């Protein structure tokens, strides 16, 4: 099974180790992973800012790069939602392109949805032990219906204990450019999320989107919490979490 990996721009630059964990998971599941090197961004920042021309250009570029694969896998609910939910709407007036985009959208999967729904993954390639809580990222949850899959995959590892936080479904306040344009509102929203993470008692929050990850981790550190770990689900499932910069290490480095 030939899988094209869409790294996502944030993972590529900010957290390459998440892409490596994703590759490990896919290869352990028997997939042949390829990485189109011309890939850049899915176009969501432009789309959400009303620039549908740029978004359409990038959707076409994505189509050229990825339509030859059996499947396309994305370690992000929001980029996955962009491809599956919003790409088709961009080509409503072009039936030929629309058919190709629809076919692409149908074989593009958020990582946990792919591992659970398509592969039916039964065992994990690495080890990770401890208590975690899970934050549902908005686009993955509401655009793709990703909610049961990450939990089912975490349950494959008996050393992981999942403690649900209150309002796990609530937005963390990131919202792309929203977090920069309305930083004060955004940080008030993420403080709610952090309150629920702390109240869960879990020392580690796991999630599936880079935006939420940077937002939650950035706010935790700014407010003096240097111990709560923020990990991408790929790192936890692949058992590569030790490779991530750990908060305690960061604390010592300071």
């Amino acid at each position: 099974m030939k899988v094209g990996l869409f790294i996502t721009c944030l993972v590529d630059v900010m957290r390459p180790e998440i892409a490596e964990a994703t590759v490990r998971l896919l290869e352990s599941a028997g997939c042949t992973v390829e990485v189109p090197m011309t890939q850049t961004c899915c176009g969501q920042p432009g789309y959400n800012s009303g620039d549908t021309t740029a978004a359409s250009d990038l959707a076409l570029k994505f189509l050229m790069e990825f339509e030859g694969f059996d499947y396309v896998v994305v370690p992000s609910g929001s980029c996955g939602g962009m491809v599956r939910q919003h790409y088709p709407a961009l080509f409503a007036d072009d039936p030929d392109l629309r058919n190709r985009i629809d076919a692409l959208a149908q074989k593009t999967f958020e990582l946990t949805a792919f591992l659970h729904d398509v592969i039916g993954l039964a065992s994990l390639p690495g080890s990770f032990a401890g208590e975690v809580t899970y934050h549902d990222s908005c686009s993955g949850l509401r655009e793709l219906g990703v909610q049961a899959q990450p939990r089912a995959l975490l349950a494959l590892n008996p050393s992981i204990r999942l403690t649900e936080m209150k309002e796990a479904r609530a937005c963390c306040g990131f919202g792309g450019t929203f977090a920069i344009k309305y930083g004060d509102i955004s940080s008030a929203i993420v403080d709610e999320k952090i309150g629920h993470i702390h109240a869960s008692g879990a020392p580690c929050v796991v999630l599936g989107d880079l935006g939420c990850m940077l937002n939650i981790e950035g706010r935790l550190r700014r407010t003096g919490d240097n111990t709560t770990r923020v990990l991408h689900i790929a790192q936890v499932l692949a058992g590569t979490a030790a490779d991530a910069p750990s908060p305690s290490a960061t604390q010592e480095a300071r």
Partner: protein
Amino acid sequence: MQVQSMHFKARSGQKLADVRLQQNLKVLSQRWTVGRTNAIAELDDFEATRDEAVERRNRALANLDVWLERFEAQATARGATVLWAETPEDASKLVVEIARRHEVAKVTKSKSMVSEEMALNRHLEAAGVKVVETDLGEYILQINDNEPPSHIVAPVVHKSKDEVSDLFARVHKRPRLTDIPQMTREAREFLRPQFLSSDMGVSGGNFLIAETGSVAVFTNEGNEGMCTVLPPKVHVVVTGIEKVIPTLEDLATMARLLPRSATGQSISNYFSILTGPRAPGEQDGPEHMYFVLVDGGRTGLLGGEFQDMLRCIRCGACMNHCPVYQKIGGHTYGWVYPGPMGSVLTPSYVGLEKTLDLPQAATLCGECHVVCPMKIPLPDLLRKLRERLGMAAWAFAARRPAVYRPLARIGARVLGWMGGDAHRISSLPGGSGWSLYRDMPSPVGPTFKERWAKQGRRTTPR
């Protein structure tokens, strides 16, 4: 109502710092989100009811002119007068004319957001007519120097009981009460003589029913009946032209969804269907009944990409569930309608140039779309309103891999260097909105694409 949406940023800062407001908003959002969840679970099939409601509303909007004419004919046949207003100001002028014609000295009002669009109280008072708000929340706002409402269902939700206790003691000149039933009783004592001496009642309308020429009103306090049926000579309904539905059967579907989505009630405490003035031999009802139907920008949405917005039944579920509304409250949005529905309606009705923040001040989390009983794609509509600001450089590079990859490499290095050994950046050039409140976790090395290429792994193109 005057548009204040240009002060969004300044106001949101004040509201975030208002500890009491923050507590009130938290209580509201928890009570109403839980209430809605429980109430929709009572329905056999919420999703099917919702689909049916959407279809019924779409059917009405697809031939809005036909149903409005049908409504007019039926209402007129039953003795009411139907008047049309292109702008909210025109609508206010019509209501003032009605008041003059019937020599009205005092108007009692039940809650109406369209009357807020019209600034009706100001217009009536300028014409020498005394106006008394009789919805408890609206009454509280009126005696507090005509403060604007902050929520379309619970206008006074931003106030705590203590604030109302202080206000009542000051305005009513009575000993300060702290028990809610006692406070309500006191308000009732002040309102009752107003109802009995009122010349004209003004109400909103949740729905207009074309086949019978009726208006349907959902309320919880019983004041609406006092305004429309009890003593006044004249009843004026003010509402938007998009509120018309063809049949009573349509109304039954809406009635299953509106109170459940709004306040988590199976049905509101009071529910009236009012048809025509008092007929010969009838015991109650006004001598004269008027409908003032307002366009106010609504026809501008018909047939366009924002038509879905006209399905809105004003339940408030989108704001109750909105993470942004829950933090800044309704006043920040600066006009009649707050929250996600307001961020679409306000730019549409008063002009995008006065409301630049509204479409942008949303995380696009999608919860408003999930809870909307009318399935209005609010995040999509907000996206359509968003301006193309500051995205030019990103769009240029993202289209060009040859430019993008070196930039990503350099970006990863620079951010990595800025983060130092602690791997976090506390001051981000050009991103102060981020870095005033958060650290930016910094990258730890080369980009994934560099690592992948270095390993000699499978790439496309090779």
